[in-house]
């Protein structure tokens, strides 16, 4: 009975996932009032409110998503690329063998099957691909790329298709090479904590595997149920654990990748120290599939912390959140594993879309979520208690709660992690992912809100395209997510936002893309964060590895 009772208990509140011992974050449609679906499906499907106003519902008809080639009429199909023919498809079919490895829209109409590979998670970008290939081995990837390179067929490497800058879907008729069938864990060394795995392993699967071995994947993000570790490396994803475990540039020890000419670059090192020449794997970390396809990675994974605590605060001003962050660093130091910022609007939206009760009574302009992870519960609790008392007594925070059990931990996290998904509820989101000096981070949100208000683009009814301007993000990493949820994508809104936002960021010496990358969304704006000479060097590297330019064209720079 223990199991069924536990299950029933889980039904009472939001949900839980018994497989992962710490903070598994799934939003299952468990109770009636939990309105959005598991991240697994929702992140890979375009979603639109259905008539019951729930986020789940049937995926929006793909037709509703505008073709990228229409949104960006300036981008022309590269005339040097060949057009796919029946013979090409036959070649791939022979090469890959199994029927399911080739989604063929060349010899027949397969638009419905191909659509999920053609359009992105935000419903913002849509390509015209007619062919999807799903190789099962590095060797197959090598043969595919060689053939494509020889025949000047352009390709798009694709992982979980959760990328937020349009990098993972084609613009024209590029072949989608999806890594989902390369999903094996190759090895794990329990002493060193080094994991070697195929690029197509889903992040959550990798993390659950590691949980069994008391280790943790040093990266965590809201799309964990869908995104692949190869995609994470290709985008150099930052996520929720960066504050504690650092970036993939440090944690990835080795990479196996295939270059466009079919060369298998075997740099799958499992050494922590290896000073023997240029560190080429770094080019693939954040390379967004522009110079090769990552097929395997080796990564250093830390020991999983048995003691996790989560607290959630309401604060009166942005100044107070900075004060709280400083105190948290000072008093919690080595056990602080996340410090997340959410503005009041973002929390109201989660509350509105999911129907979940707000963790705190009363309204606060800002909210913060703090997580500690350590090896000793008593030690951590003592520190945390002292910290909490300090911030309460000194009026740094107005109110707060401390999760008393695992379910509350997940519920509190869902108010941070659910934001992304809930913002899409009304149709679309303009997303900016920026690095800024912490002190000025939130000024941008206010400035943009003023700007859109003045332009009469924000409002409560359908005549206004935008609903609100929202700021949240990884405060611990000085990373702001500026989001504008909209009822429809609208050029007028875009005009107000760009290049305004980028200029704003440039003038503060920030980065126009802290973690989501360049893709197609930021390609034109790279100059705001990189100098001409840097861009020139990057182009030289691209030319060296991909002389025919077949890898993920029209993007990056």
């Amino acid at each position, binding site marked *: 009975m223990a199991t069924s009772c536990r299950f029933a208990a889980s039904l009472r*509140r939001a949900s839980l996932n*018994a497989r992962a011992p710490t903070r598994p974050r799934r939003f299952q449609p468990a109770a009636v009032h939990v309105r959005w679906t598991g991240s697994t499906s929702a992140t890979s499907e375009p979603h639109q409110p259905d008539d019951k106003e729930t986020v789940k519902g049937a995926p929006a008809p793909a037709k509703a998503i505008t073709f990228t080639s229409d949104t960006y009429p300036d981008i022309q199909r590269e005339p040097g690329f060949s057009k796919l023919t029946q013979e090409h498809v036959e070649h791939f079919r022979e090469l890959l063998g199994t*029927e399911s490895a080739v989604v063929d829209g060349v010899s027949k109409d397969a638009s419905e099957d191909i659509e999920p590979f053609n359009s992105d998670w935000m419903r913002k970008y849509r390509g015209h691909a007619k062919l999807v290939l799903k190789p099962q081995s590095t060797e197959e990837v090598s043969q595919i790329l060689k053939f494509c390179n020889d025949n000047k067929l352009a390709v798009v490497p694709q992982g979980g298709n959760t990328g937020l800058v349009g990098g993972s879907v084609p613009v024209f008729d590029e072949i989608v090479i999806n890594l989902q069938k390369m999903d094996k864990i190759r090895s794990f060394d329990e002493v060193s904590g080094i994991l070697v795995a195929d690029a197509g392993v889903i992040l959550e699967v990798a993390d659950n595997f590691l949980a069994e071995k008391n280790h943790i994947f040093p990266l965590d993000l809201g799309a964990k149920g869908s995104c692949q570790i190869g995609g994470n490396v290709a985008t150099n994803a930052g996520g929720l654990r960066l504050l504690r475990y650092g970036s993939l540039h440090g944690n990835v020890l080795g990479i196996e990748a295939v270059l466009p000419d079919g060369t298998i670059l075997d740099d799958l090192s499992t050494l922590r120290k290896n000073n023997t020449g240029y560190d080429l794997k770094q080019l693939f970390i954040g390379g967004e599939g522009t110079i090769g396809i990552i097929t395997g990675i080796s990564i250093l994974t830390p020991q999983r912390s048995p003691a996790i605590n989560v607290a959630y605060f309401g604060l009166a001003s942005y100044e107070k959140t900075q004060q709280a962050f400083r105190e948290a660093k000072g008093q919690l130091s080595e056990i602080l594993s996340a410090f997340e910022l959410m503005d009041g609007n973002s929390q109201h939206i989660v509350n509105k879309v999911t129907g979940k009760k707000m963790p705190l009574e009363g309204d606060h302009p800002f909210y913060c979520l703090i997580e500690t992870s350590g090896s000793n519960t008593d030690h951590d609790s003592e520190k945390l208690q002292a910290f909490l008392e300090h911030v309460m007594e000194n009026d740094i925070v107005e109110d707060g*709660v401390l999760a*008393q059990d695992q379910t509350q931990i997940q519920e509190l996290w869902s108010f941070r992690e659910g934001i992304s998904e809930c913002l899409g509820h009304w149709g679309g989101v303009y997303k900016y992912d920026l690095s800024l000096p912490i002190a000025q981070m939130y000024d941008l949100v206010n400035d943009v809100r003023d700007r859109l208000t003045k332009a009469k683009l924000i409002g409560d009814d359908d005549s206004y395209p935008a609903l609100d301007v929202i700021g949240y993000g990884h405060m611990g990493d000085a990373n702001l997510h500026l989001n504008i949820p909209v009822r429809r994508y609208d050029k007028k809104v875009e005009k107000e936002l760009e290049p305004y936002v980028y200029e704003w960021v440039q003038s503060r010496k920030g980065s126009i893309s802290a973690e989501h990358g360049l893709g197609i969304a930021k390609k034109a704006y790279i100059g705001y964060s990189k100098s001409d000479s840097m861009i020139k060097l990057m182009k030289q590297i691209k030319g060296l590895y991909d002389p025919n330019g077949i890898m993920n064209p029209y993007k990056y720079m």
Partner: protein
Amino acid sequence: MSGLRILVPVKRVIDYAVKPRVNRTQTAVETSSVKHSMNPFDELSIEEAVRLRERKIPVESITAISAGPPKAQDILRTAMAMGADKGIHVAVDEQDALEPLGVAKLLAKVVQGEKSNLVILGKQSIDDDAGQTGQMLAGLLGWAQATQASKVSVEGDSVTVVREVDGGVETLRAALPMVVTTDLRLNEPRYASLPNIMKAKKKPLEKKKLADYGLELGARLKTVRVTEPPPRKGGVKVDDVDGMIGKLKELGAL
């Protein structure tokens, strides 16, 4: 009637989001370095007691009690942070954990000492799933009982309890004193807020032993063996519909 004197027993159990593991000797579930928290049904009991008070029903006192190892005091502090006025910790070693009848006998004594007139218990604790304590307590005290409450209302000394039964709901009414056990849909427990966590630290927590209640409670039951359910057999992935039909035929399902 002067007011409600509510007693709420709470138990420290393995957190219900944690997958329990059987120990090597197959005598029990592994409890060391596993996250523990309050039995979820007991959270409902505390919440309900606090809500009765918030509904302006005259509640004189809410006392939380837990019998268990020293760590049970953490759970009592949580109960007090949620709104209980005081806690009673009865020290019981983990290896001497009480059986439902033992708990019921202890609670009967505490009820006398505290002059409680309403006991709100969880319908079961998720570690043993015995689901007996409330009923036994009502028996020992000779009080009315309403189990698995999904709604509780109090008017004067009359208590009305709605309970979900197969295919519908049943409404019971009885006069105080009374025993009520809680079910999932009774309420949604609150978070422990920081100010209340701090206040809870200053609330009284009495430390007792079984002997203080003149009790000596031996075990009547012996756990013979604890085993995990058989592992789920791994599934297979098929490539396409034909593959699936083939597989189903192979398994004799078609």
